[in-house]
């Protein structure tokens, strides 16, 4: 049921992404050729791009192509888009997963500790730090890290990945981009974890556990955390979805060969075919993560499973 809803949403999203190009003033062929357009070249390019078909037909061709991994050719250099995307998609997914692997445990631990020592110095420091981190632009965080860590020669400030790079090297080279993303998303996750747990600490069964003489850490881990899982999973998924967009800026800072960099280049060349394809991939990942959050939080809460 939920999955059908997600697929439907994805369909609408693809419609929006495709429909946006229809808003283009004039037409694509005209735009591409610019000043050098002659009636003959215009007609030829229209034929080549399939612009003579009505919009629904072109939409159908584009969508079925995209589903089978064929996104057409780049308007800037004529290479197939699937070839451009191929390796970069892997790189971006690697970076996002790396950042997630760093940030999820850290934010959970910090959130639990902040909830445990509520209103202590640690809690205040963590909160102030989180608020500040949320307000910083990503590239600011990234460059501060470059200034501190790359200056001393500990980590490289640029990422060069080629097919021969080993996994260990890769982890080492992508450390700074991943750390930047981690700092940006940890703040939000930590705050939500803390809020979810503090919310639960007022419930009667926590009071009971405390009266039994349990240690505070045990109460939080055994009694509060399982019940706080649903909101926490939701926030984690939302932040992973946020990672997808955060990746764009960070990839540009560190010259990381990923999808974000590709998209930015395509936007400055006004290469609409590539932008459409990358936007569709990002949007699909975003919708999928939100869906996953929905399903997972239902699974962790038996009451939601047996509704109605």
């Amino acid at each position, binding site marked *: 049921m939920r999955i059908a809803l997600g697929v439907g949403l994805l369909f609408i999203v693809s419609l*929006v992404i495709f429909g946006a190009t229809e808003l283009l003033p004039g037409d694509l062929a005209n735009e591409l050729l610019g000043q050098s357009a002659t009636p003959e070249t215009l007609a030829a390019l229209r034929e080549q791009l399939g612009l003579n078909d009505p919009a629904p037909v072109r939409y159908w061709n584009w969508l079925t192509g995209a589903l089978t991994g064929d996104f057409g050719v780049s308007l800037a250099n004529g290479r197939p888009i699937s070839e451009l995307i191929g390796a970069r998609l892997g790189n971006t997914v690697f970076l996002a997963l790396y950042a997630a692997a760093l940030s999820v445990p850290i934010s959970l631990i910090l959130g639990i500790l902040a909830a445990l020592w509520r209103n202590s110095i640690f809690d205040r420091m963590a909160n102030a730090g989180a608020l*500040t981190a949320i307000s910083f*632009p990503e590239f600011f965080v990234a*460059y501060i890290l470059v*200034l501190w860590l790359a200056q001393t020669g500990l980590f490289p400030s640029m990422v060069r990945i080629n097919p021969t790079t080993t996994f260990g090297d890769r982890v080492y080279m992508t450390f700074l981009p991943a750390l930047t993303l981690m700092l940006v998303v940890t703040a939000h996750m930590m705050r939500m974890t803390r809020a979810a747990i503090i919310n639960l600490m007022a419930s009667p069964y926590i009071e009971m556990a405390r009266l039994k003489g349990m240690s505070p850490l045990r109460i939080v881990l055994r009694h509060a955390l399982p019940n706080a899982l649903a909101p926490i999973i939701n926030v984690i998924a939302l932040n992973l979805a946020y990672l997808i967009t955060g990746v764009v800026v960070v990839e540009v800072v560190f010259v990381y060969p990923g999808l974000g960099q590709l998209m930015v280049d395509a936007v400055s060349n006004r290469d609409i075919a590539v932008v459409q394809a990358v*936007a569709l991939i990002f949007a699909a990942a975003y919708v999928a993560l939100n869906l996953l959050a929905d399903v997972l939080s239902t699974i962790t809460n038996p009451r939601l499973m047996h509704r109605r």
Partner: protein
Amino acid sequence: MGFAASVILGLAALFAIAWALRAAARATFSGQTRSLAHDIPLTASFGLLVIAIYTFVAIAAPALAPFPEREIVGGQFQAWSAEHWLGTDRIGRDMLSRLIYGARNTVGIAFATTALAFVVGAILGLWAALVGGWLDQALSRFVDALMAIPALIFSLLLLTIFGTSVLTLILVIAAVDATRVFRLARAVAQGIVVMDYIEAAKLRGEGSWFLIRREILPNAMAPLVAEFGLRFCFVFLAISSLSFLGLGIQPPTADWGSMVKDNATLITFGDVTPLLPAGCIALLTVAVNFVVDWQLHRASGLKEQ
């Protein structure tokens, strides 16, 4: 690390001034202004002070800047000196002057965008909640579909289609953010439109516009004002990010995001100058967040009494 120390000292000085101003306001004013000055936390007065300084710099930019915004006045990448306090940039323009003009351009454009997003989003949201029925459904589902695409990705897509200029930048970001404002305005207004006084005003025969303006808006103001502050932060960060990517405000206009990008090579040599514009962005966002926090706290505190 002499630089880090001076940044900390500067921030401490700002806090001290904010504290002194708050004390002065408590002593001089009476009545409502005084109680306001009494309640305000130090962080919020710091935020207000920073916002005031930025506004002043933005308005008085031509008088404050030692050099013109777009003119080449020295060599490339000159170091800090008595003549060029913060050195010069990639093609020899004065960094300090561009930083000062940047307050006008970046903050001004972000403010205009937020205001536009707010007018469009809030009016549509309140209207949808008031009218209800198929109009509400159509607008809400449309907004849902747009919100399913990540904001940055969607604005990149729109910028490709309409090209990169300041006007399209404002319109695109405003359109993307108006969807978020619409959501909030509609949610807030839905609690209000079922009130008896709205019913009474409808029976009096008032039109939709009057209802929105005189009956709903005043009661939805508190959450909307707080949202305006938060939205400003998001818009400001979004515009800076796009400018940083080279897709937002275009040169030769001085802008903090693109200034970071242009001079980024200096960072790898351990020079902090390119970080200053980014720091300006961060400081203003933190300041606005402090003030919003205080406003939200006040709004919720009043309800408890």
